[in-house]
Protein backbone atom coordinates (compact mmCIF):
# COMPACT_ATOMS: atom_id res chain seq x y z
CA UNK A 1 0.00 0.00 0.00
CA UNK A 2 1.43 3.38 -0.96
CA UNK A 3 0.80 6.56 1.02
CA UNK A 4 -0.95 8.32 -1.84
CA UNK A 5 -3.20 5.31 -2.44
CA UNK A 6 -4.49 5.29 1.15
CA UNK A 7 -8.10 6.23 0.57
CA UNK A 8 -10.09 3.71 2.60
CA UNK A 9 -11.80 4.20 5.93
CA UNK A 10 -10.41 3.28 9.35
CA UNK A 11 -12.87 0.39 9.67
CA UNK A 12 -11.87 -1.04 6.27
CA UNK A 13 -8.20 -1.02 7.27
CA UNK A 14 -9.05 -2.54 10.64
CA UNK A 15 -11.06 -5.29 8.98
CA UNK A 16 -8.14 -6.13 6.68
CA UNK A 17 -5.71 -6.30 9.62
CA UNK A 18 -8.08 -8.54 11.58
CA UNK A 19 -8.34 -10.81 8.54
CA UNK A 20 -4.56 -11.30 8.63
CA UNK A 21 -4.36 -12.44 12.24
CA UNK A 22 -2.59 -15.67 11.22
CA UNK A 23 0.50 -13.57 10.35
CA UNK A 24 0.87 -12.38 13.93
CA UNK A 25 1.93 -8.84 12.98
CA UNK A 26 -0.05 -7.06 15.71
CA UNK A 27 0.08 -7.23 19.51
CA UNK A 28 -2.77 -4.73 19.74
CA UNK A 29 -5.19 -3.50 17.07
CA UNK A 30 -6.69 -0.04 17.51
CA UNK A 31 -10.41 -0.25 18.12
CA UNK A 32 -11.46 3.20 17.04
CA UNK A 33 -10.20 6.10 15.01
CA UNK A 34 -8.90 8.65 17.47
CA UNK A 35 -7.34 11.16 15.10
CA UNK A 36 -9.27 13.79 13.16
CA UNK A 37 -6.26 16.04 12.47
CA UNK A 38 -5.50 17.14 8.97
CA UNK A 39 -2.00 17.19 7.56
CA UNK A 40 0.47 15.61 5.19
CA UNK A 41 -0.55 12.08 6.21
CA UNK A 42 -4.26 12.60 6.71
CA UNK A 43 -6.09 9.26 6.74
CA UNK A 44 -2.91 7.26 6.06
CA UNK A 45 -2.86 4.01 8.10
CA UNK A 46 0.32 3.11 9.95
CA UNK A 47 1.42 0.92 12.81
CA UNK A 48 4.13 1.24 15.45
CA UNK A 49 6.53 -1.22 16.98
CA UNK A 50 5.37 -2.13 20.46
CA UNK A 51 8.34 -0.44 22.14
CA UNK A 52 7.13 3.00 21.00
CA UNK A 53 4.85 4.51 23.63
CA UNK A 54 1.27 5.25 22.62
CA UNK A 55 -1.00 7.18 24.95
CA UNK A 56 -3.76 4.93 26.24
CA UNK A 57 -2.68 1.97 24.10
CA UNK A 58 -0.80 -0.96 25.61
CA UNK A 59 2.96 -0.90 24.94
CA UNK A 60 4.46 -4.27 25.85
CA UNK A 61 7.68 -4.39 23.80
CA UNK A 62 6.60 -8.04 23.34
CA UNK A 63 7.83 -8.74 26.87
CA UNK A 64 5.97 -10.27 29.79
CA UNK A 65 7.72 -7.66 31.93
CA UNK A 66 5.57 -4.94 30.28
CA UNK A 67 2.49 -6.98 29.40
CA UNK A 68 0.04 -4.52 30.99
CA UNK A 69 1.95 -1.28 30.50
CA UNK A 70 -0.30 1.52 29.20
CA UNK A 71 1.64 4.78 28.69
CA UNK A 72 0.02 8.08 29.66
CA UNK A 73 2.00 9.85 26.92
CA UNK A 74 2.78 9.52 23.23
CA UNK A 75 6.33 9.06 22.00
CA UNK A 76 7.51 12.13 20.11
CA UNK A 77 7.17 10.35 16.74
CA UNK A 78 3.61 9.26 17.51
CA UNK A 79 2.70 12.84 18.46
CA UNK A 80 4.21 14.14 15.20
CA UNK A 81 2.31 11.58 13.12
CA UNK A 82 -0.88 12.33 15.02
CA UNK A 83 -0.39 15.99 14.19
CA UNK A 84 -0.15 15.12 10.48
CA UNK A 85 -3.42 13.17 10.55
CA UNK A 86 -1.98 9.63 10.27
CA UNK A 87 -4.16 6.77 11.55
CA UNK A 88 -2.53 4.57 14.18
CA UNK A 89 -3.89 1.09 13.41
CA UNK A 90 -2.09 -0.72 16.23
CA UNK A 91 1.13 -1.98 17.71
CA UNK A 92 3.40 -4.49 16.04
CA UNK A 93 4.95 -7.66 17.39
CA UNK A 94 8.72 -7.66 17.84
CA UNK A 95 11.61 -9.49 19.42
CA UNK A 96 11.44 -9.12 23.18
CA UNK A 97 12.47 -5.56 24.16
CA UNK A 98 14.02 -5.18 20.66
CA UNK A 99 16.67 -7.75 21.52
CA UNK A 100 17.03 -10.11 18.59
CA UNK A 101 17.22 -10.44 14.85
CA UNK A 102 14.93 -13.37 14.07
CA UNK A 103 11.57 -11.89 15.11
CA UNK A 104 10.88 -15.06 17.10
CA UNK A 105 11.83 -14.08 20.67
CA UNK A 106 8.75 -12.06 21.64
CA UNK A 107 6.41 -13.04 24.48
CA UNK A 108 3.00 -14.06 23.19
CA UNK A 109 2.24 -13.50 19.51
CA UNK A 110 5.07 -13.89 17.00
CA UNK A 111 5.01 -12.67 13.38
CA UNK A 112 5.49 -14.99 10.41
CA UNK A 113 7.07 -14.13 7.06
CA UNK A 114 4.41 -13.47 4.39
CA UNK A 115 6.79 -14.76 1.68
CA UNK A 116 6.75 -18.20 3.31
CA UNK A 117 5.37 -18.90 6.76
CA UNK A 118 8.21 -21.35 7.46
CA UNK A 119 10.81 -18.60 7.17
CA UNK A 120 11.89 -16.19 9.88
CA UNK A 121 10.48 -12.67 9.36
CA UNK A 122 13.65 -11.07 10.76
CA UNK A 123 13.76 -8.73 13.70
CA UNK A 124 13.46 -7.03 15.84
CA UNK A 125 10.80 -4.93 14.04
CA UNK A 126 9.24 -8.14 12.73
CA UNK A 127 5.53 -7.29 12.90
CA UNK A 128 6.07 -3.89 11.26
CA UNK A 129 7.80 -5.45 8.24
CA UNK A 130 5.08 -8.09 7.98
CA UNK A 131 2.26 -5.52 8.20
CA UNK A 132 3.84 -3.45 5.40
CA UNK A 133 4.51 -6.55 3.25
CA UNK A 134 0.87 -7.60 3.63
CA UNK A 135 -0.34 -4.14 2.64
CA UNK A 136 -2.12 -3.72 5.98
CA UNK A 137 -0.54 -0.32 6.57
CA UNK A 138 1.19 2.26 4.38
CA UNK A 139 4.16 2.40 6.71
CA UNK A 140 5.33 1.11 10.06
CA UNK A 141 7.42 2.79 12.71
CA UNK A 142 10.31 0.78 14.09
CA UNK A 143 13.51 1.10 16.05
CA UNK A 144 16.93 0.16 14.69
CA UNK A 145 19.74 -0.42 17.16
CA UNK A 146 21.87 -2.84 15.15
CA UNK A 147 19.72 -3.39 12.06
CA UNK A 148 16.27 -4.01 13.55
CA UNK A 149 14.46 -2.14 10.78
CA UNK A 150 16.70 -3.15 7.85
CA UNK A 151 16.91 -6.86 8.71
CA UNK A 152 13.16 -7.65 8.66
CA UNK A 153 12.80 -5.34 5.63
CA UNK A 154 15.33 -7.48 3.74
CA UNK A 155 13.70 -10.78 4.77
CA UNK A 156 10.13 -9.64 4.06
CA UNK A 157 10.87 -7.74 0.82
CA UNK A 158 10.06 -4.17 1.89
CA UNK A 159 12.02 -0.93 2.32
CA UNK A 160 13.53 -0.24 5.75
CA UNK A 161 15.40 2.94 6.62
CA UNK A 162 17.43 4.06 9.61
CA UNK A 163 18.32 7.75 9.41
CA UNK A 164 21.32 9.45 10.97
CA UNK A 165 21.56 8.90 14.73
CA UNK A 166 19.52 11.41 16.73
CA UNK A 167 17.97 13.20 13.72
CA UNK A 168 14.61 11.78 14.82
CA UNK A 169 13.81 12.03 18.53
CA UNK A 170 13.69 8.71 20.42
CA UNK A 171 11.76 10.36 23.27
CA UNK A 172 9.09 7.95 24.48
CA UNK A 173 10.63 4.77 23.10
CA UNK A 174 11.75 1.99 25.40
CA UNK A 175 15.53 2.29 25.31
CA UNK A 176 17.80 -0.64 24.48
CA UNK A 177 21.25 0.73 23.54
CA UNK A 178 21.14 4.49 23.98
CA UNK A 179 24.28 5.26 21.98
CA UNK A 180 22.84 3.42 18.96
CA UNK A 181 19.01 3.43 19.22
CA UNK A 182 17.47 5.09 16.16
CA UNK A 183 13.89 5.48 15.02
CA UNK A 184 13.32 3.86 11.62
CA UNK A 185 10.59 3.50 9.03
CA UNK A 186 9.36 0.54 7.01
CA UNK A 187 7.39 1.20 3.82
CA UNK A 188 6.57 -0.40 0.51
CA UNK A 189 8.64 2.15 -1.43
CA UNK A 190 11.66 4.42 -1.06
CA UNK A 191 9.77 7.66 -1.65
CA UNK A 192 7.18 6.85 1.02
CA UNK A 193 9.92 6.04 3.52
CA UNK A 194 11.63 9.36 2.69
CA UNK A 195 8.39 11.27 3.17
CA UNK A 196 7.83 9.85 6.66
CA UNK A 197 11.47 10.30 7.69
CA UNK A 198 11.30 13.91 6.54
CA UNK A 199 8.20 14.60 8.65
CA UNK A 200 9.72 12.97 11.71
CA UNK A 201 13.00 14.84 11.28
CA UNK A 202 11.00 18.07 11.68
CA UNK A 203 12.44 19.56 8.52
CA UNK A 204 16.05 18.43 8.86
CA UNK A 205 15.68 15.96 5.98
CA UNK A 206 14.04 16.97 2.68
CA UNK A 207 11.07 14.87 1.54
CA UNK A 208 11.64 15.08 -2.21
CA UNK A 209 13.87 12.30 -3.51
CA UNK A 210 16.22 13.24 -6.33
CA UNK A 211 14.96 11.45 -9.44
CA UNK A 212 18.01 12.11 -11.61
CA UNK A 213 19.38 8.58 -11.44
CA UNK A 214 22.92 7.57 -10.57
CA UNK A 215 25.08 9.14 -13.25
CA UNK A 216 28.18 10.50 -11.54
CA UNK A 217 27.41 9.02 -8.13
CA UNK A 218 30.45 7.34 -6.61
CA UNK A 219 29.49 4.07 -4.96
CA UNK A 220 31.93 2.39 -2.60
CA UNK A 221 32.02 -1.39 -2.35
CA UNK A 222 33.59 -2.37 0.99
CA UNK A 223 35.78 -5.33 0.14
CA UNK A 224 35.59 -6.76 3.67
CA UNK A 225 31.80 -7.19 3.40
CA UNK A 226 32.06 -9.14 0.17
CA UNK A 227 34.87 -11.31 1.55
CA UNK A 228 32.84 -12.23 4.66
CA UNK A 229 33.04 -16.01 5.00
CA UNK A 230 29.33 -16.59 5.70
CA UNK A 231 28.02 -14.43 2.83
CA UNK A 232 25.71 -16.74 0.87
CA UNK A 233 26.67 -17.06 -2.84
CA UNK A 234 23.09 -16.33 -3.98
CA UNK A 235 22.99 -13.05 -2.01
CA UNK A 236 26.45 -12.03 -3.23
CA UNK A 237 25.47 -12.77 -6.82
CA UNK A 238 22.28 -10.70 -6.64
CA UNK A 239 24.03 -7.69 -5.12
CA UNK A 240 26.78 -7.92 -7.74
CA UNK A 241 24.13 -7.89 -10.47
CA UNK A 242 22.73 -4.72 -8.88
CA UNK A 243 26.20 -3.15 -8.89
CA UNK A 244 26.71 -3.98 -12.57
CA UNK A 245 23.36 -2.47 -13.50
CA UNK A 246 24.14 0.71 -11.56
CA UNK A 247 27.47 0.90 -13.36
CA UNK A 248 25.70 0.53 -16.70
CA UNK A 249 23.54 3.51 -15.73
CA UNK A 250 26.57 5.71 -15.14
CA UNK A 251 27.48 5.20 -11.49
CA UNK A 252 31.13 4.93 -10.63
CA UNK A 253 31.91 1.80 -8.64
CA UNK A 254 34.96 2.03 -6.37
CA UNK A 255 36.34 -0.62 -4.06
CA UNK A 256 36.96 0.72 -0.55
CA UNK A 257 38.41 -0.79 2.60
CA UNK A 258 37.05 -0.71 6.14
CA UNK A 259 40.02 -2.30 7.91
CA UNK A 260 38.40 -2.72 11.34
CA UNK A 261 35.22 -4.40 10.05
CA UNK A 262 36.38 -7.73 11.51
CA UNK A 263 35.91 -6.29 15.02
CA UNK A 264 32.44 -4.83 14.54
CA UNK A 265 30.48 -7.81 15.87
CA UNK A 266 32.49 -7.94 19.09
CA UNK A 267 32.32 -4.17 19.61
CA UNK A 268 28.58 -4.18 19.04
CA UNK A 269 28.00 -7.11 21.42
CA UNK A 270 30.10 -5.70 24.25
CA UNK A 271 28.82 -2.11 24.13
CA UNK A 272 25.29 -3.24 23.24
CA UNK A 273 24.86 -5.65 26.13
CA UNK A 274 26.44 -3.20 28.59
CA UNK A 275 23.96 -0.48 27.65
CA UNK A 276 21.02 -2.91 27.56
CA UNK A 277 21.77 -4.12 31.08
CA UNK A 278 21.86 -0.53 32.27
CA UNK A 279 18.66 0.52 30.46
CA UNK A 280 16.68 -2.51 31.63
CA UNK A 281 17.59 -1.71 35.22
CA UNK A 282 14.50 0.47 35.37
CA UNK A 283 12.23 -2.54 34.91
CA UNK A 284 11.86 -3.59 38.53
CA UNK A 285 8.14 -4.26 38.99
CA UNK A 286 7.75 -1.44 41.51
CA UNK A 287 6.57 1.56 39.45
CA UNK A 288 5.28 -0.20 36.34
CA UNK A 289 5.39 -3.54 34.56
CA UNK A 290 4.97 -7.11 35.74
CA UNK A 291 5.26 -7.45 39.53
CA UNK A 292 6.33 -10.73 41.10
CA UNK A 293 5.51 -11.70 44.67
CA UNK A 294 7.92 -11.10 47.50
CA UNK A 295 8.17 -10.34 51.18
CA UNK A 296 11.00 -7.86 50.80
CA UNK A 297 11.93 -5.05 48.39
CA UNK A 298 14.79 -7.14 46.95
CA UNK A 299 12.62 -10.21 46.57
CA UNK A 300 9.96 -8.30 44.62
CA UNK A 301 12.55 -6.92 42.20
CA UNK A 302 14.27 -10.29 41.84
CA UNK A 303 11.03 -12.14 41.13
CA UNK A 304 9.61 -9.40 38.90
CA UNK A 305 12.67 -9.41 36.64
CA UNK A 306 13.24 -13.17 36.72
CA UNK A 307 9.62 -13.98 35.83
CA UNK A 308 9.12 -10.99 33.53
CA UNK A 309 12.17 -11.29 31.27
CA UNK A 310 12.58 -14.00 28.65
CA UNK A 311 15.93 -15.56 27.87
CA UNK A 312 16.68 -12.98 25.13
CA UNK A 313 16.70 -10.24 27.76
CA UNK A 314 18.32 -12.31 30.50
CA UNK A 315 21.35 -13.39 28.47
CA UNK A 316 22.03 -9.82 27.38
CA UNK A 317 21.52 -8.35 30.85
CA UNK A 318 23.88 -10.93 32.33
CA UNK A 319 26.51 -10.38 29.61
CA UNK A 320 26.19 -6.61 29.94
CA UNK A 321 26.45 -6.73 33.72
CA UNK A 322 29.67 -8.70 33.29
CA UNK A 323 31.12 -6.17 30.82
CA UNK A 324 30.28 -3.39 33.30
CA UNK A 325 31.87 -5.29 36.19
CA UNK A 326 35.39 -4.58 37.41
CA UNK A 327 36.70 -7.57 35.46
CA UNK A 328 34.87 -6.90 32.19
CA UNK A 329 35.08 -3.10 32.09
CA UNK A 330 38.82 -2.59 31.66
CA UNK A 331 39.43 -5.80 29.72
CA UNK A 332 36.55 -5.60 27.25
CA UNK A 333 34.34 -2.50 27.43
CA UNK A 334 37.05 0.17 27.20
CA UNK A 335 38.86 -1.59 24.30
CA UNK A 336 35.48 -1.97 22.53
CA UNK A 337 34.79 1.74 22.92
CA UNK A 338 38.27 2.49 21.55
CA UNK A 339 37.75 0.15 18.62
CA UNK A 340 34.46 1.92 17.93
CA UNK A 341 36.50 5.10 17.42
CA UNK A 342 38.63 3.35 14.80
CA UNK A 343 35.53 1.98 13.03
CA UNK A 344 34.11 5.53 12.90
CA UNK A 345 37.41 6.75 11.42
CA UNK A 346 37.26 4.02 8.74
CA UNK A 347 33.87 5.28 7.57
CA UNK A 348 34.98 8.91 7.63
CA UNK A 349 37.85 7.99 5.32
CA UNK A 350 35.57 5.96 3.05
CA UNK A 351 33.17 8.89 2.64
CA UNK A 352 36.07 11.10 1.59
CA UNK A 353 36.36 8.80 -1.45
CA UNK A 354 32.73 7.96 -2.26
CA UNK A 355 29.15 9.25 -1.90
CA UNK A 356 27.56 6.02 -0.67
CA UNK A 357 28.47 2.47 0.29
CA UNK A 358 26.58 -0.47 -1.15
CA UNK A 359 26.46 -3.90 0.52
CA UNK A 360 24.05 -6.78 1.07
CA UNK A 361 21.74 -6.07 4.01
CA UNK A 362 21.95 -9.63 5.29
CA UNK A 363 24.52 -12.37 4.63
CA UNK A 364 21.75 -14.84 3.73
CA UNK A 365 18.15 -14.87 2.56
CA UNK A 366 15.43 -15.52 5.18
CA UNK A 367 15.99 -19.03 6.55
CA UNK A 368 13.80 -21.75 8.01
CA UNK A 369 12.47 -21.02 11.49
CA UNK A 370 13.75 -24.37 12.77
CA UNK A 371 17.35 -23.45 11.88
CA UNK A 372 19.57 -21.97 14.54
CA UNK A 373 20.27 -18.29 13.84
CA UNK A 374 23.77 -17.22 12.98
CA UNK A 375 25.30 -15.20 15.83
CA UNK A 376 26.74 -12.79 13.26
CA UNK A 377 23.45 -12.34 11.42
CA UNK A 378 23.58 -8.57 11.84
CA UNK A 379 27.21 -8.29 10.74
CA UNK A 380 26.37 -6.01 7.78
CA UNK A 381 23.95 -3.74 9.64
CA UNK A 382 25.64 -2.97 12.98
CA UNK A 383 28.27 -0.59 11.62
CA UNK A 384 25.69 2.04 10.64
CA UNK A 385 24.63 2.11 14.31
CA UNK A 386 28.16 2.07 15.71
CA UNK A 387 29.02 5.02 13.45
CA UNK A 388 25.63 6.80 13.50
CA UNK A 389 25.24 7.07 9.72
CA UNK A 390 22.02 6.63 7.71
CA UNK A 391 21.33 3.28 6.02
CA UNK A 392 18.48 1.81 4.03
CA UNK A 393 17.57 -1.69 2.83
CA UNK A 394 15.90 -1.89 -0.57
CA UNK A 395 14.53 -5.11 -2.09
CA UNK A 396 16.45 -6.28 -5.15
CA UNK A 397 15.36 -9.64 -6.55
CA UNK A 398 15.13 -11.87 -3.42
CA UNK A 399 17.76 -10.03 -1.40
CA UNK A 400 17.99 -6.72 0.39
CA UNK A 401 20.56 -4.21 -0.85
CA UNK A 402 21.89 -1.89 1.82
CA UNK A 403 22.98 1.65 1.05
CA UNK A 404 24.84 3.69 3.64
CA UNK A 405 25.71 7.37 3.35
CA UNK A 406 27.65 9.90 5.37
CA UNK A 407 26.00 11.38 8.47
CA UNK A 408 23.18 13.77 7.53
CA UNK A 409 23.44 12.88 3.82
CA UNK A 410 20.08 11.12 3.57
CA UNK A 411 19.49 12.89 0.24
CA UNK A 412 22.24 10.92 -1.51
CA UNK A 413 21.17 7.68 0.18
CA UNK A 414 17.54 8.06 -0.96
CA UNK A 415 18.63 9.03 -4.49
CA UNK A 416 20.65 5.84 -4.91
CA UNK A 417 18.01 3.76 -3.11
CA UNK A 418 15.37 4.93 -5.58
CA UNK A 419 17.56 3.84 -8.48
CA UNK A 420 18.10 0.41 -6.90
CA UNK A 421 14.37 0.09 -6.29
CA UNK A 422 13.64 0.79 -9.96
CA UNK A 423 16.27 -1.74 -11.07
CA UNK A 424 14.71 -4.32 -8.78
CA UNK A 425 11.31 -3.78 -10.36
CA UNK A 426 9.94 -1.86 -7.38
CA UNK A 427 7.81 1.27 -7.42
Amino acid sequence: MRIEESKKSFSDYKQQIEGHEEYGAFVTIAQEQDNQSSGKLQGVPYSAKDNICTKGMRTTASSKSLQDFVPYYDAKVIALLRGEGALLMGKNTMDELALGSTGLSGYGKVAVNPRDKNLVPGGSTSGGAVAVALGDVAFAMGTDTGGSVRQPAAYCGVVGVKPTYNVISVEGTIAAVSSMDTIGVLASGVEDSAKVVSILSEGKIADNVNQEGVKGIKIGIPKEYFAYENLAPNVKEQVEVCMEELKAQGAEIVEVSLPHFAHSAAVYSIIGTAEVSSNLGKIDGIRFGYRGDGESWDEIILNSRSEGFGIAAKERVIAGTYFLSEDGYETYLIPAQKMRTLIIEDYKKAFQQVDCLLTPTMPTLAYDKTQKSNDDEGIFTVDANLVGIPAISVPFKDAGVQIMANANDEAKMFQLALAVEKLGGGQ
Partner: protein
Amino acid sequence: MVEIEKIAQIAFLKLDEDEKAICQKKIENIKKSAEAMLQEDLSAVAPTTKLTTALSYREDMVIPPSKRDDLLSNCKNAENGAFVVPKIVE
Protein backbone atom coordinates in the same frame (compact mmCIF):
# COMPACT_ATOMS: atom_id res chain seq x y z
CA MET B 1 34.94 -18.74 33.34
CA VAL B 2 32.71 -15.94 34.53
CA GLU B 3 30.87 -16.58 37.80
CA ILE B 4 27.33 -16.43 36.46
CA GLU B 5 25.63 -16.69 39.85
CA LYS B 6 27.53 -13.69 41.15
CA ILE B 7 26.70 -11.67 38.02
CA ALA B 8 23.04 -12.73 38.24
CA GLN B 9 22.89 -11.50 41.82
CA ILE B 10 24.20 -8.08 40.75
CA ALA B 11 21.66 -8.00 37.89
CA PHE B 12 18.73 -8.97 40.16
CA LEU B 13 18.03 -12.13 38.16
CA LYS B 14 17.35 -15.68 39.30
CA LEU B 15 18.45 -18.21 36.66
CA ASP B 16 17.73 -21.92 36.33
CA GLU B 17 20.48 -24.29 35.22
CA ASP B 18 19.59 -24.08 31.52
CA GLU B 19 19.55 -20.28 31.65
CA LYS B 20 22.91 -20.23 33.45
CA ALA B 21 24.40 -22.35 30.66
CA ILE B 22 22.96 -20.07 27.95
CA CYS B 23 24.28 -16.94 29.68
CA GLN B 24 27.69 -18.54 30.22
CA LYS B 25 27.87 -19.44 26.53
CA LYS B 26 26.77 -15.95 25.50
CA ILE B 27 29.58 -14.31 27.47
CA GLU B 28 32.20 -16.84 26.34
CA ASN B 29 31.17 -16.37 22.69
CA ILE B 30 31.49 -12.59 22.94
CA LYS B 31 34.86 -12.89 24.68
CA LYS B 32 36.04 -15.24 21.96
CA SER B 33 34.87 -12.86 19.22
CA ALA B 34 36.85 -10.08 20.94
CA GLU B 35 40.18 -11.96 20.99
CA ALA B 36 41.46 -10.36 17.78
CA MET B 37 40.42 -6.89 18.98
CA LEU B 38 42.41 -7.34 22.17
CA GLN B 39 45.56 -8.00 20.11
CA GLU B 40 45.37 -4.51 18.57
CA ASP B 41 47.38 -1.63 20.05
CA LEU B 42 44.66 0.73 21.25
CA SER B 43 46.75 2.66 23.76
CA ALA B 44 46.63 5.93 21.79
CA VAL B 45 42.96 5.72 20.84
CA ALA B 46 40.24 7.64 22.69
CA PRO B 47 37.09 5.63 23.54
CA THR B 48 33.76 6.55 21.95
CA THR B 49 31.04 6.64 24.58
CA LYS B 50 28.57 8.79 22.68
CA LEU B 51 28.22 9.78 19.06
CA THR B 52 29.18 13.30 18.19
CA THR B 53 29.85 12.69 14.50
CA ALA B 54 26.16 12.82 13.76
CA LEU B 55 24.97 15.07 16.54
CA SER B 56 21.76 16.90 15.93
CA TYR B 57 20.30 19.38 18.40
CA ARG B 58 16.70 20.22 19.11
CA GLU B 59 15.24 23.27 20.78
CA ASP B 60 15.05 23.09 24.57
CA MET B 61 11.43 22.94 25.57
CA VAL B 62 9.67 23.41 28.86
CA ILE B 63 7.22 20.59 29.45
CA PRO B 64 4.83 20.29 32.37
CA PRO B 65 5.76 17.75 35.05
CA SER B 66 3.89 14.43 35.06
CA LYS B 67 0.76 14.23 37.17
CA ARG B 68 0.83 11.97 40.21
CA ASP B 69 -2.14 9.88 39.10
CA ASP B 70 -0.47 9.30 35.73
CA LEU B 71 2.75 8.21 37.38
CA LEU B 72 0.86 5.74 39.55
CA SER B 73 -1.39 4.48 36.75
CA ASN B 74 0.84 1.52 35.86
CA CYS B 75 1.78 0.56 39.41
CA LYS B 76 0.37 -2.75 40.65
CA ASN B 77 0.08 -1.54 44.22
CA ALA B 78 -0.60 2.10 45.09
CA GLU B 79 -2.36 3.75 48.03
CA ASN B 80 -2.96 7.34 49.04
CA GLY B 81 -1.02 8.66 46.06
CA ALA B 82 2.09 6.58 46.76
CA PHE B 83 3.73 3.34 45.61
CA VAL B 84 3.20 0.56 48.16
CA VAL B 85 6.35 -1.45 48.81
CA PRO B 86 7.58 -3.68 51.64
CA LYS B 87 9.28 -2.02 54.60
CA ILE B 88 13.00 -1.56 53.89
CA VAL B 89 14.11 -0.38 57.33
CA GLU B 90 14.05 -3.00 60.11
